[in-house]
């Protein structure tokens, strides 16, 4: 009996980690969110969990026997006829319930996975010029003497063009943020510009949503094609500002 209870508890613990633990961790990292594991992924995880637990508990014959003993007793023992009927009924009804859940009409929106930071191309064409993204650097970063001035000018570009979505606090929560999907990037977060090279930002800003490769779902992103509105210089300055304001450093390798 002990082994069977152990198996049930183990599976339950893993289930709770996936169901509650992961969203809680997400909520801790990104305040105000509750990122649940998608159902499809949950099924795959649970398959491995159940398989893993069974493997672990049946790794030798003895423990496999112990695990199977209560099952054998319930189904086989002549004294346990009543319990047997109850167990058979519960399992059958549970199976019926799961089937019903799967065939009943569902209104849950499909989950659309997209790559948030897809691999950049090696070069990109903007304003009729070709830029090699492998070697491209921010010309204003080297200009130490005018750094403050350039960053401030970048800030003005930001507050004339970007802040309605990316927010006054650069946290991705501008006053229109909730009306677009995917949500605007949060630059304060360690998972965005802190992980990226400046040339990557230059490409993302310059070509906008439609410049994304297919894995980035270009048909959904509301990011405008900024080369239509801004000059090369303005884009580099706004990039300088994003790092200056948030205190992050661009990745250089």
């Amino acid at each position, binding site marked *: 009996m002990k082994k069977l209870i152990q198996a049930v508890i183990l599976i339950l613990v893993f289930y709770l980690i996936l169901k509650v633990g992961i969203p809680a961790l997400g909520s801790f990292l990104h305040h105000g969110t509750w990122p649940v594991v998608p159902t499809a992924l949950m099924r795959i995880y649970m398959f491995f969990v159940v398989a893993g637990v069974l493997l672990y508990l049946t790794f030798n014959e003895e423990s496999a026997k112990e695990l199977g003993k209560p099952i054998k007793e319930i189904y086989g023992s002549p004294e346990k006829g009543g319990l047997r009927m109850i167990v058979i009924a519960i399992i059958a009804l549970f199976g019926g319930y799961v089937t019903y859940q799967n065939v009943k009409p569902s209104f849950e929106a499909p989950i659309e996975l997209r790559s948030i930071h897809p691999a950049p191309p090696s070069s990109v064409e903007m304003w009729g010029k070709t830029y090699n993204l492998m070697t491209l650097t921010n010309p204003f970063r080297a200009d130490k003497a005018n750094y403050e001035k350039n960053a401030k000018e970048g800030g003005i570009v930001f*507050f*004339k063009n970007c802040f309605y979505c990316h927010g006054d606090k650069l946290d991705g929560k501008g*006053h229109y943020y*909730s009306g677009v*999907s995917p949500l605007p990037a949060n630059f304060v977060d360690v998972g965005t510009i802190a992980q990226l090279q400046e040339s990557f930002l230059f490409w993302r800003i310059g070509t906008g949503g439609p410049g994304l490769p297919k894995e980035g779902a270009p048909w*959904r992103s*509301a990011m405008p094609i900024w080369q239509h509105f801004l000059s090369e210089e303005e884009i580099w300055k706004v990039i300088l500002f994003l790092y200056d304001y948030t205190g992050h450093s661009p990745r250089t390798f």
Partner: protein
Amino acid sequence: MGKKGFKLILGVLFTVIFIYSSVVFAEQGDKDNGKKIYEKKCWWCHGEKGEGNGPAAEFLNPPPRDFTLGVYKYKSSPPGQVARDEDIFRIISDGMPGTMLGTAMPAWKDVLSEKDRWDLVAYVKSMTDLFQTEKASGEISLGSAVSSSEESINKGKEAFKKAKCFECHGENGKGDAIKKLKDDWGFRVWPRNLTKPWTFRAGSEPKDIFTRVSVGIPGTPMPAFADPKSETKLTDEERWHVVNYVKSIADDTKKLKEGEIVVKAKYVEGNLSEDVHAPEWNNAPPTAYQLVPQIIAKERFFKPTIDGVTVRALFNDKEIAFLLEWDDRTKSVPGDADAEKLSEGEVFEDAIAIQLPTSIPEAMQKPYFGHGDKEMGVNQWYWSSGSTSGAQTVKVIDSTGLGSGKARDTAKTDVKGKGEYKAGVWRVILKRSLTTANAKDELQFEAGKFIPIGVASWDGSNGEKGSKHTMTTWYWVLLEPKAGSKVYTYPAAAIIVLVVGQLWFARGMRKEYEK
């Protein structure tokens, strides 16, 4: 001394320190530190000298506060007095709720310490001489709050009439003004739509509403109804009734519900009515979408008046009908004198459109949400409100990318539309047959499949025409799949299989057990 006593003293000590520190921060806010923070975080909107003219100001409606006059719209001091420090502190800390309609003021309490926020209060107060000579006596008296009841709501409704609130806020509180209002800075202001409490700038708790009704909104036409000098003064009790009335008219079907992005089209037997008030619509669940201005392609647009649309859908064996409902303070009829009086510039038609892909996407890929792309096109059903010289019209536009849209020959579409404007609300029905002969270029509806949908809206009295409009990105519409018999047969089959299987297993076990 016991452990309990020690804890008590510690608690009291902390409370005293906490209160004392707030008082100290409030009274001795460090202006110079405030200035430093201001120059890093605030000037972008409020301007270098606090004149409300930072680089972002021209893109904001309402505009950022001008601190040089010392007039604060959201305050809790008695009428005629300057704002309390706590009022300024509150807005800095909590921002302005209802940021959807262009109020960009965020809550700063998660990035600035309490001391920093008090220092900012000291700094912005120093931008005018007003606070050197004047000081608020305290918070306005709240009287004794009246809890909500049918009786109180009715009394509130009467007070709403008596105090002429409807002259600006409209008969039904939709803010459908019959006046063109301006604030003291010369900016156009719109009376609040009272049925959307989540857009109230300084909170929608009963106390917040009571305070606003009592002291008004300085600098705007909203008067102080607690002002003894006012002709339309309301007593404390009457103002609490107004609070309960305002609370009672909230329209939750217009409120965004997180994660609810699917329009659930319900199946109905028989004909689909073209009447926007047909009782069938009560069975169609409402889905509210936020509308944001078109800020993606030229020519961009930043000052919308409409912030959302609620979509419902019904279908029968032949047709599908969408009901689009949105609050619009103005019925925009080109050529109409009343409409012209209220309009910002030339009056254009009000309009709404839904966008659908030309076919149900098989995989994740959809057409670009802005008018489609070369790989996948879109159909747009566009309804406009008509003018004094022309009736309402419906067009179908086929598009494969921005600027490529072509209105289809009216003979080649059976999309029908009909709209009604009533007391600050547009309700428009757009209807089409589920399938058409033109399957190549036109979406064929199918129950049980998620179909991308987008919405765009134009307020013709707000200069909205062409690319100047509000919009959504892609959401979904799902025609409720007919439940069919499998909902019952599959679970039943599962139960039978499991019972038989287990009995068979038990027989095997019994044999083994007996051994």
